[in-house]
């Protein structure tokens, strides 16, 4: 199904209408982006085969031999730590006859042992030796030739590890661009500066629809007051939540460039965040820890953002930071997507005071996460319902285009190149599809 022959057959220029390419057109995306297996195959090559893709967090692999398994597009990989303590990303494919060498999602072991013929690989990917080695009597065949493959590039930013299947391209820092500052805000919220991802588990869901529907939705401020009305009405007695997503909201959507995007809830939420931090012993301890580590000014900014409570961040193409979690959108097929949400918890610095603070904040974070973002939460099921309906509606061949025009003429350009629009505008999606078009057109 995948392959460059099919990829070449997709004329992407005819599938995304973009006024910056042709001023005569509105901003529209063709239904084939969500329904055509050839487009999906081309995406796996041109996007997931090239760009930086998130593979896990450093806290998931604290010790040599600790590992998690994941996918880059459709390519199974293992994130692990070598005996020398270095981060390694390995292709999860036995160099002998192709079986995956790791089936578990997470664990700790000394070797990845292929169960088919017993080949064992060290965490750095080197083959320990052939089983029944006397059968490998050709002097030109050596165990050294069978080291597990690796993606050519691996880099991490503030503990979040990314890999690229392409040898060349922009650095991770260049790729993240304006998105990096929001990852900083999120990481800095930890009282100790340390995060824990993976050990707290994950929420998982899937839906019968294309992966891009979830990437679009994660930074869509337009749907909340419709899809999540029942939850938002119950969430806050003063309807603060509803105000955030109303047509009159002071909140913003931001096209950060490079396909990344942001919903910025701070114009409504920053003051309440700051008041809440002052109102309880736990909040005050949190603020004091941040002030000591970051200084008063930065601590205030960090608290007024409260990480993903203050924003939704899309890191192109398939990574979201929302509320208390990091979310990975995993394409399975053109009309099937799996999504994994990893709650991000805090780790104390080992002192009783710091560990207790982390424990208290973590319980709050977990309950807050489950309340909205689990498969039985107050928010995600409604979104899943919409995703299913979008894919169902896409079966109508007679109507070819999806519209992303909302707020196009009222967005403003910032000095850093970002474009700012109203909370409910579709600038984030335009950002995504501009980048999509550039990558797919090669």
């Amino acid at each position, binding site marked *: 199904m995948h392959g460059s022959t099919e990829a070449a057959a997709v004329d992407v220029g005819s599938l995304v209408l973009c006024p910056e390419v042709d001023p005569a057109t509105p901003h529209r995306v063709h239904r084939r982006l969500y329904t055509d297996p050839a487009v999906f195959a081309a995406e796996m090559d041109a996007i997931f085969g090239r760009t930086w893709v998130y593979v896990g967090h450093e806290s998931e692999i604290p010790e040599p031999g600790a590992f998690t398994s994941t996918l880059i597009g459709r390519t199974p990989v293992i994130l692990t730590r070598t005996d020398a303590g270095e981060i390694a990303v390995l292709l999860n494919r036995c160099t002998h006859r192709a079986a995956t060498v790791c089936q578990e999602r997470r664990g700790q072991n000394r070797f990845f042992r292929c169960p088919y013929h017993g080949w064992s690989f060290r965490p750095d990917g080197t083959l320990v030796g052939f089983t029944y080695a006397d059968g490998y009597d050709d002097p030109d065949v050596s165990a050294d030739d069978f080291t597990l493959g690796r993606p050519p590039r691996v880099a991490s930013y503030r503990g979040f590890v990314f890999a690229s299947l392409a040898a060349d391209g922009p650095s991770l820092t260049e790729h993240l661009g304006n998105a990096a500052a929001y990852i900083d805000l999120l990481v800095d919220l930890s009282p100790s500066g340390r995060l824990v991802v993976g050990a*707290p588990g*994950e*929420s998982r*869901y899937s839906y019968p629809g294309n992966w891009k529907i979830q990437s679009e939705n994660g930074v869509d401020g337009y749907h909340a007051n419709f899809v999540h009305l*029942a939850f938002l009405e*119950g969430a806050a007695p003063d309807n603060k939540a509803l105000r955030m997503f109303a047509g009159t909201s002071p909140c913003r959507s931001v096209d950060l460039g490079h396909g990344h995007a942001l919903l910025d809830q701070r114009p409504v939420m920053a003051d309440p965040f700051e008041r809440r931090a002052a109102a309880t012993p736990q909040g005050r301890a949190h603020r004091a820890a941040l002030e000591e580590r970051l200084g008063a000014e930065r601590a205030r900014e960090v608290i007024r953002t409260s990480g993903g409570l203050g924003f939704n961040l899309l890191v192109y193409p398939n990574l979201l930071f929302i509320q208390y979690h990091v979310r990975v959108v995993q394409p399975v097929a053109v009309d099937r997507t799996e999504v994994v949400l990893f709650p991000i918890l805090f780790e104390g610095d080992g002192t009783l005071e710091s560990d207790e603070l982390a424990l208290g904040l*973590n319980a709050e974070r977990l309950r807050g*996460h489950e309340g909205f973002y689990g498969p039985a939460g107050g928010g995600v099921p409604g979104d*899943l*319902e919409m995703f299913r309906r979008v894919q169902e509606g896409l079966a109508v061949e007679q109507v070819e285009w999806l519209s992303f025009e909302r707020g196009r003429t009222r967005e403003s350009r910032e000095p850093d190149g970002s474009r700012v629009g109203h909370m409910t505008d579709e600038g984030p999606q335009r950002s995504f599809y501009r980048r999509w078009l550039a990558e797919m057109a090669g």
Partner: protein
Amino acid sequence: MSRSLLDPTVVDLVQHEAALLDERRLEDWLALFASDGLLWVPGRAGEVDPGCHVSIIYDHLPQLRARVTRLLSGKETAQDPPSRTMRAITNLRLVSEPDPGGEVTVESVQVLYETRGVGAPLLVLPARVTHRLRPAADGPRPEWAIVSKRIDLLEVERHFDNLAFLL
């Protein structure tokens, strides 16, 4: 510890609870819970530490009340149309003798069948359900109040679709 002969009022409580859910009488269902009652659907098998590991649902009575209000509001997109469910209950057994306060723990295997609207696929969710029950003086089912209901889904590791109906 397990006994084959269960107090019939315990059996009745577990079956009555399931019937209220299947009939979508959620306000009546809420009334079965003690004021410190908990509904817990762990996020992994054998979970012992919901403070450090994510659950699917971890609702004490106030959150549970908000959940029911939302589900019955007529505005919940995830329940439009609402789910139709059947809970089949089997292997009911007492797993702890009454403690000094008279509380007992009872376990059952429940298979939850769910569908919605017309033509939605049938979802089958087998689970081990653990009820912690406290003798209650009043309430619609006077014999017992639910201190906690824990639902351990057999397929807890899978990628779920819309589970808004799960209670």
